[in-house]
């Protein structure tokens, strides 16, 4: 019986659900109660510089805006970013957690699955429904993999922490804002669907990952 109790105490819950975190017994023992159970440190480490590099590749180096190629480069870089930067800046309870390797792959699968609802949302927000479906899906995949570190953390917290919403919203706002250039009559080759929105989601993600810890 006592052993069992010990086990319970050792278990760390990261939920910011008030019913759990404000549990009276918990309250006494948690010396850092004023801090949320899970948070991201305010540090330069979280700034995803690789996204800027990828954008530079996409806009300047790749000819004809190879969206698929960009996606294939994005995936390993996001994983690396998660392992070396984002996860190290995330504090669970009082400590950093080691990277959960199987979860990395599960999250990658989750991102692919997430692209389906993302695609539905993108279409609801006005993307063409019959034409360019593949392009729209690529965009959805980009958005999902930009959210990959946040999604990993969501899984890592068993869906109990609301902190990660910001990251998803930042990516969405980036994409939403970037639509504004599409109707302009500048006749540039980057005004083609979905290039501006891809760039917008990247910028949204860049800003989101950089500043979300502060807000």
């Amino acid at each position, binding site marked *: 019986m006592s052993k069992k109790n010990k086990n319970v105490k050792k278990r760390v819950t990261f939920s910011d659900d008030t019913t759990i975190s404000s549990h009276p017994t918990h309250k006494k023992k948690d010396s850092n109660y004023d801090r949320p159970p899970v948070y991201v440190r305010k540090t330069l480490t979280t700034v995803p510089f690789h996204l800027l590099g990828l954008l530079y590749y996409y806009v300047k180096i790749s000819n004809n805006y190879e969206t698929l190629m960009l996606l294939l480069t994005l995936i390993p870089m996001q994983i690396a970013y998660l392992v070396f930067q984002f996860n190290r800046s995330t504090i669970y309870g009082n400590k950093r957690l080691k990277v959960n390797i199987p979860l990395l792959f599960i999250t990658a699968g989750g991102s692919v699955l997430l692209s389906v609802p993302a695609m539905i949302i993108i279409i609801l927000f006005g993307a063409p429904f019959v*034409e360019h479906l593949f392009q729209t899906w690529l965009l959805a995949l980009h958005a999902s993999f930009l959210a990959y570190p946040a999604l990993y953390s969501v899984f890592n917290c068993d869906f109990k922490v609301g902190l990660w919403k910001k990251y998803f919203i930042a990516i969405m706002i980036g994409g939403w804002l970037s639509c504004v250039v599409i*109707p302009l009559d500048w006749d540039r080759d980057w005004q083609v669907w979905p290039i501006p929105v891809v760039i917008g989601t990247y910028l949204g993600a860049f800003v989101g990952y950089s500043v979300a810890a502060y807000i």
Partner: protein
Amino acid sequence: MLKKLLVLLILQVGGVFIFLSGFFPQKNVLAGNAAYEINTKLQENATPPFKKLVFVVIDALRSDFIFDEANSGFSFVHSKLNTGEAWGFTAYSNPPTVTLPRLKGITTGSTPNFLDAILNVAEDDSSSNIKDQDSWPMQFHNHGYKMRFFGDDTWLKLLPPTIFDEYEGTNSFFVSDFQQVDLNVTRHIPHQLKTKNEWDVLILHYLGLDHIGHKGGASSIFMPDKHKEMDGVIETLYKDMDKDTLMVVMGDHGMNDVGNHGGSSAGETSAGLVFLSKKLSKFAKPSLQKDTKLPMSLDDPSTYKYLTIIQQMDLVPTIAALFNVPVPRNSAGVLIPEFIQLLNTKVGDTKLLENYKQLLEVAKMQDIEGFLDEDRISKKVDQSKIIQTMKQIQQTIIRNATDYNYDNIFIGYGVLVLATIGSVVFGISVMGISVPLSITLGIAALIGFSCFGSSFVEEEHQLWWWIITISISSSYIISLISGRGQFWPHFIVFFGVRLIRGWNNTGQQTVYNYVISQQLQQEPAILWALNIWTVFVVCIRDFKGNPVSFISSFTLGMMVMTYKMSWAIVNKEGMPEYLLDITRKYCVIYTGFNDESVFDQALIPMATLFFRCFASITVIKFIATALKMQKSNTLMNDMTKYITLLLIFLSPSANIPQYLVFELMRYAITPIMKKQYSTSVYAVSLVSLVLQNFTFFQFGGTNSIATIDLANAYHGVSENYNIYLIGVMMAVANFAPAIYWAMFPWAIIYNRCDKKGTTFGKNKLPILIFSCVVGCCLLAACVALRYHLFIWSVFSPKLCYYAGWAIFMNVIMGYLVEGPLLMFN
């Protein structure tokens, strides 16, 4: 509160109209007819290369219709182009690309006035005629050419009919007819060919091709047959011509892919132009035609630049030179260089100099200086150099086509600014510095600033879509935060607006193939099932305990359905078999006819009956409410239903199911407004404002005059129509979805409300502020960009839409209709 609102509204509308009177002035023209000025004797005695002219205008004949390999069915014209008996050009027609201003351009050679495009619709107006302006038909008449005219009666409104020995006009307004309107022209040809010694000029104007475009777009299934028919007409005429006859086949303007015109896109401004004569084969073909075999194909078909490009007005001095009459005084045309070889050297040089001098006079009238006077040009004429200079003068003239009345512009703008400041201050005092006021100002600022960019004006629907997506998402997030979490209502609304967004092509830049309205037109069974459901859902709206409303709305609903079905059958839209039978039986009972024309015959009486029923039900409802025979508060609810049925009556059949989506959205928004925003009048008013604008665009409306829906302005009117009735119907038909959403607040805010006046004022305030702020920005944009390339094709139409919206939606619908309804309610 109401008094202040009224004063501000009057100030706003007054300011806008003073501004308009200064911004669209009547153009300066040189009065009187031209006479020769240089080498008068030589010119008078010269023998013209041609003696007879056959002038065939095919309305909306875009350049590719006559030259392109894939699109053109004019095989006879192609063969003549290849032998050199015909010379082809692509003629740039200056916007506004609608018939009346273009005909002015073709006959007088002047640049069109923007007002002409508007007057093209209000045909009865007499201020648009050019009886006092010099034109080549007038010159021909004065020089003793005998002329005959058959075709579009716009010609007879522009020119005094007395200059023609024989004429018959056809009416261009029954857009749905594309057979009879042309047969009415063609049937004159055999007789004219028999009596060809009695005339020198024969003008024909065919409208069918334009009607096909309006109805089914540039690639309509009726197009190839129409091309062959027109080609046949040209062949008949040409075979009977001698070598002293010149035939001109031309389009007055082009069309875009949807079949509309009025704007300045490449398709609309590129009209075809072909000169045919047996004599032409003796001379050198235009250089671009030399090595080209017709029909041809372009590397980039979207440019529509086939063969040599000329200005359409260049036709005027060319015809004048070829038939030896003076160039009309206001012409800005330049003699087409290829035709100078037809004149002998001395006459050719003189004609060119004469043209130069005449152009300079037009330029001087517009205070354009800096070009050499004609007598300073050396006696030895260097043709290519002169032509180059003339082209420069022409460009300057086109650019400076109008004079503005700056006094009116600034007075009008001042009054509007006053109204705007007043309304914002009033808004702050009533609403306080609050969320609704900041949202109103935010939306107004966004739309206002967008007025300075031509693409944003063209694609305004995107901005409204943008506003809608952010509003619904943030409203949902607010509901999440406040813990109500109304997912389904928000989702239904979002899904509804997304459906509507995919319903029609709108904006002026892109055309999608997979819009819902087109898919539905190919599946008439689904379309008409949806249409019937729509009418049913509208009729059944809160009928409980109100049998009178139930019966009257179903009576109206049945009439709407039968009429729309007959209308669709007459217009050869698809129709499921079983409905075809029902409609036929109904029409047979109705008219007593029993043959093919029964649908045609039934249309006008059916529409008249509907309007009468609508009017009498409205009157009875008012009387019943006034005498307290009806439960109070039912007047506005019932009238909303009747008016919705009227809107359905005036909508194209493929758009009717949109009202079903509207109804669905209404059912979803109402609880959101009640629970989440506790029926705040401002919130309801803002939702209504955004949806009015959004649905206006998604119904197919744009900021271009090309998309004004004319087909639905002529229900139930016969030949002798009343112009005001048509005007009202046109406004209702074009603003139909906006009217629906303007009625949306009624059921929510006026039900069981005590302070009618205050609620009414609160409902109108955000709309007034929005309208004033956008007006300030738009008017400033029009003045600042008055020399912009797109001022006539983008900014001026937007200005007209803005004025139309202010008058019809804000004043007539918002005050004159809503006011009395609320008073009696």
